[in-house]
């Protein structure tokens, strides 16, 4: 094919690029779904760990308070403030993780709307664009009497 047919060459490269783009972006959208699930699983595991830790800290605080209630005289000066602080800190961490869980759910939901539209474009509109280009290429080749391989 001569340089006169550079337009046909360029259109063929564009059509190939569209096809590669479609497959590559479908893989990207699949991977994003996995990334969302991975993030959710990680946050759920952290929340679960925080709950377990909170339960343990609360039990330690309860035991301290029992000791304080069951002792007399000088022994009654049992200091449970450290346990109180530990419970409060763990509770805060749990709430922090839960807030991130909520935020990730909201953002993933908002993203899904755009992603669904893009996925539909990849699966429906893009093949039409490729077909349109193929027809344009065939038309140009027919007008010039070209019927090369891959046309």
């Amino acid at each position, binding site marked *: 094919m001569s340089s006169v047919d*550079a*337009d046909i060459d*360029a*259109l063929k*490269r*564009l059509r*190939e*690029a*569209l096809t*590669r*783009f479609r497959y*590559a*972006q479908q*893989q*990207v959208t699949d*991977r*994003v779904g996995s*990334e*969302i699930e991975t*993030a959710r699983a*990680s*946050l759920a595991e*952290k929340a679960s760990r925080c709950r377990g830790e909170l339960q343990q800290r609360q039990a330690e605080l309860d035991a301290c308070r029992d000791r304080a209630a069951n002792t007399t005289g000088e022994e009654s000066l049992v200091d449970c403030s450290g346990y109180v602080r530990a419970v409060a800190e763990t509770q805060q*961490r749990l709430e*922090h*993780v839960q807030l*991130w869980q909520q*935020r*990730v759910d909201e*953002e*993933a939901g*908002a*993203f899904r709307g*755009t*992603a669904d*539209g*893009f996925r539909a*474009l990849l699966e429906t*509109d*893009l093949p*039409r*664009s490729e077909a*349109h*280009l193929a027809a*344009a290429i065939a*038309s140009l080749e027919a007008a010039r009497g070209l019927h090369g391989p891959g046309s």
Partner: protein
Amino acid sequence: MPGRPDQDCDHQLSLLGAAWDSAAQHWHDDAARYFDTHHWMPLLSASRSYLEALRKLIAVLDSAERDTGY
């Protein structure tokens, strides 16, 4: 090796843009104008919107992981 999804999406869009620029230099008939209006521009617009939403999402996922790394 795949990179971050948003970076891969951006890269693929750049490659496609280069292919379109090359084709547009040679293709100027009515079919080209139709393709530009009815295929290329909607694709470009949707891809950019998707990339923007993807970048935002990935930033949130990264922040969630970083901010809860106890």
